């Protein structure tokens, strides 16, 4: 009988086998304890590290608002620019492969290899580091092909401001640049990040809050190669507002061209022009020459380019239209006339002589003509720009009252246009002059206001300073019945969803205390000036533009007192005479003869305006 049940296993556990089993159990126990330590005690910390490995918050950069002209023609674009980014943690571990990749990256970006290596080693290993300069499209294409062999490297695209015709629009638009330490201190509380750009000058700076969008973010899961696997959560960026400037691009171009041609013709290098609508304060054109390429700044300007711009004697970085302060010269005479009329010192019919000079307390003050022009009323005095006539009026009005009228016309005040760096100019009076002196000198001749100061003040000299923008506002006020408008460059701004967030709201900043009749008398003088045969009228006839409106030239002395001083040339103008809809100022730095140098430029601008008034005045398309 087979008793298979009898075949029973009986283990013979030798000491050595027991020892082996004990060792196995012991070692596995040690592993289990270490596992418990790692997974339970350190578990939360290591789970956090795992998440930090793979979940990154990336910024979705908001597009900066586009700036258009009044008809919707873009003046700046956000053009794509490429950069190389590297996640250091994903670089090859093997030293030889790492060295090979670094030298390849150095070759493509043109960055020194040591610099590249240092930058990558210093950075957060799991964050992208931007490496090297902006890539051209050719470099981008070359790099893109090599990417599969370059673990950790990727190409990021970002938008870079590119300005259209910077020499024409540059001084208005300005430019953006990376935040410097001062910007960061100022804008940090507003949530600006160091990687952002900010408007530095021009409307880019003046309209920063409108143009800047709101960055979004995305929490993305990335794999070990830094590739995004999925998006866990995100908030879309909101683009900045689209801003429609009051500028007309074609008029701006024509103004810049007329000014540039005028400067070349007269061997001058610098000038400015501002064209506004006297009814609203809208700036239709604003030009300052010389200009410069604002695009140099958006890509990080080179030291050579920067020092060239800074050391240029013509100071291209200075926006003369808003920040150049010059004596207005004879263009100021409408203020003196208004003050004399309104204060009752003269009437529109009062006749005063226009000698070749007058003697005040032994000092001789000359007219521009070396002969007497005879008796004249205020209109003719403006038309002939008789200095001695206005010396007399200024003396009658007095410096304090003259200063009051000057301020009422906007002199001496920064205008509040949407650009930083606007200068106010200067309206002097006796108090101002005393304040210029130190206490011990209070009663010296140099510190006391003299009658001479008053009478030269009356022809826009003395210590008076103004800017081309203020000049345009001033002539606009003469034209519109005494309302100094707040200048604006913004017609309308629309947010990313198309809602209008800002629109033109004409604001009167000051009203000249002058009657309509008195202002009309002043305008009459300006009309006569541009209609003088063989003089100003020549430019209008030559250009085929009707001399409908009013203008005033001015050749302002600067650089001290005395005869044969250097001069600047001015021309201010409004049109049409009956219902003024345009006012402009032309400034030629170091211009010698305003009738010959500045006035023709204004006429050319007017010619363009008249020929294109329909399209210029057409609404936003």
């Amino acid at each position: 009988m087979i008793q298979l049940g009898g075949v029973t296993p009986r283990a013979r556990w030798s000491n050595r086998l027991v020892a082996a089993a004990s060792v196995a159990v012991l070692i596995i126990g040690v592993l289990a304890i270490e596992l418990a330590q790692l997974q339970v005690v350190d578990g939360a910390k290591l789970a956090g590290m795992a998440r930090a490995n793979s979940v990154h918050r990336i910024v979705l950069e908001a597009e900066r608002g586009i700036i258009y002209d009044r008809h919707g023609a873009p003046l700046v674009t956000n053009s794509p620019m490429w950069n190389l980014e590297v996640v250091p943690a994903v670089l090859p571990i093997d030293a030889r492969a790492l060295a090979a990749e670094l030298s390849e990256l150095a070759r493509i970006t043109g960055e020194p290899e040591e610099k590249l290596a240092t930058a990558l080693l210093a950075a957060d290993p799991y964050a992208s580091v931007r490496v090297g300069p902006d890539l051209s499209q050719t470099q981008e294409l070359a790099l893109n092909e090599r990417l599969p062999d370059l673990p950790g490297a990727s190409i990021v695209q970002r938008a870079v401001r590119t300005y259209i015709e910077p020499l024409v629009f540059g001084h208005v638009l300005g430019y953006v640049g990376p935040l410097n330490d001062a910007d960061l201190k100022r804008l940090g509380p507003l949530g600006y990040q160091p990687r952002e750009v900010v408007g530095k000058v021009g409307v880019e700076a003046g309209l920063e809050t409108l143009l800047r969008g709101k960055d979004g973010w995305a929490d993305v899961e990335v794999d070990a190669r830094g590739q995004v696997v999925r998006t866990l959560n995100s908030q879309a960026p909101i683009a900045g507002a689209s801003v429609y400037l009051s500028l007309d691009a074609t008029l701006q171009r024509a103004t810049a061209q007329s000014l540039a041609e005028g400067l070349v013709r007269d061997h001058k290098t610098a000038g400015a022009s501002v064209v506004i609508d006297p009814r609203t304060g809208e700036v239709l054109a604003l030009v300052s020459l010389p200009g410069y390429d604002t695009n140099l700044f958006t890509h990080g300007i080179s030291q050579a380019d920067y020092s060239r711009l800074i050391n240029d004697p013509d100071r291209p970085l200075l926006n003369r239209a808003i920040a150049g302060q010059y004596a207005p010269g004879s263009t100021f005479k409408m203020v003196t006339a208004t003050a004399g009329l309104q204060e009752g010192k003269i009437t529109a019919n009062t006749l005063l002589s226009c000698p070749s000079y007058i003697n005040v307390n032994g000092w001789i003050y000359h007219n521009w003509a070396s002969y007497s022009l005879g008796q004249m009323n205020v209109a003719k005095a403006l038309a002939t720009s008789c200095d001695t006539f206005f010396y007399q009026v200024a003396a009658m009005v007095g410096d304090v009252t003259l200063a009051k009228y000057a301020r009422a016309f906007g002199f001496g005040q920064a205008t509040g246009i949407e650009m930083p760096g606007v200068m106010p100019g200067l309206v002097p009076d006796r108090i101002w002059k005393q304040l210029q002196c130190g206490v011990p000198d209070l009663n010296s001749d140099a510190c006391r206001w003299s009658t001479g100061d008053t009478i030269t003040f009356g022809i826009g000299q003395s210590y008076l300073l103004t800017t081309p923008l203020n000049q345009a506002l001033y002539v606009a006020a003469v034209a519109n019945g005494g309302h100094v408008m707040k200048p604006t460059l913004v017609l309308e701004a629309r947010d990313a969803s198309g809602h209008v967030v800002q629109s033109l709201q004409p604001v009167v900043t000051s009203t000249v205390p002058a009657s309509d009749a008195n202002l009309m008398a002043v305008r009459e003088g300006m009309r006569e000036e541009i209609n003088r045969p063989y003089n100003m009228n020549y430019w209008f006839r030559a250009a085929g533009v009707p001399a409908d409106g009013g203008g005033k030239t001015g050749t302002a002395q600067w650089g001290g007192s005395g005869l044969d001083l250097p001069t600047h040339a001015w021309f201010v103008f409004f049109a049409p005479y009956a219902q003024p809809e345009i006012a402009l100022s032309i400034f030629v730095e170091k211009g010698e003869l305003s009738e010959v140098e500045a006035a023709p430029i204004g006429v050319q601008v007017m010619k363009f305006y008249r020929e294109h008034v329909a399209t210029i005045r057409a609404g936003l398309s």
Partner: protein
Amino acid sequence: MSTTALWRRLDHLQPLLVSMLAALGLMTVYSAHADWGRQVLWLILGLGAYAAASAFDYRRLRPVALALYAGMILLLLAVHLVGHSALGARRWLSVAGFPLEPSELSKLLLVVVLAAYLSRGERLSWRTFGGALLIAAPPACLILTQPDLGTTIVLVGVMFGMLFLAGARAWQLFSLVLAGGVALPLLPYLLHGYQRRRLEIFLDPNQDPLGAGYNLLQARIAVGAGGLFGQGWLRGLQGQLGFVPERATDFVFAIFAEEFGLFGSLVLLAVFGLLLIRLLRTAAVAPDRFGELVAGGVFLMILVQVVENVGMNIGLLPIAGIPLPLISYGGSATITTLAALGLVQSVALRRRAVVHAHQGSPRTHGVASEFAG
């Protein structure tokens, strides 16, 4: 002998534990994005090898031990001469289009050869002790120079353990440890650059968190991120996103631990532990000293691999390329391990019959001798 008798002699628990490990391994390999289908093929081939080895009388191996040894050396030499290299190491032979890793096979072959050599006498003389060292040295050197530090460590560990199981005296083993201790300072000169680097990184993992320390750090993070119950199958962040390197082979345990947590890890260790005890039990019931040493050797081979693999995954031991038996992806390792376990089953099937009721019954002896064949 009837099927019922065979069934009774079979170590039932061992195939069950092996199946559990194979299933967990397959899940983890799938999660690690390795070639899952191929691993299924390796497992099927491995099961064939397991069945064949179980049926095969292990005692027939003893007479051919010398031939097996010669074959092993020839294969390892062939690797050096005509092998394929990858990642700077020459480890593979191409056999009928399949990559064969003779170093994996050599683990089992050395167990069998040493078991045959050490089962000749009861007491271990100095001569036999030295002989064992001389037997183990050539394959160890051939594998170390591939270079494959991990497998070399397994071979040395198996040899040391088998000397112990074969009855080596304490001072014999101690002198071996002493010799190793003296040789250790020489190790940096023997190691290849990357091996030395691994060792340095193990000693100070923070010295280069982006370079060589990266693997170690990422594996530790993955294991820790598993927490108590794991992140769930196919849902481990570190593993799925590729932060864990060599995630189907050397660092497969990190993948497993991240997805199944401490709970899963302890279950896995428990299964390995039970399997190891079963292997020792087979050694304890083996009908002869050769069988005992074969089972003990396979026990050591699996123990060393589990300890080194899990140890390096959790940062307890330096990194050396060693698969986790039955869990890691890989044909040669899977088939070799299953063949080894089958061989142990063969020992179990041929264990001593202790006859209680009918001692001396010729019939019973007949059965026993039939098996003794």
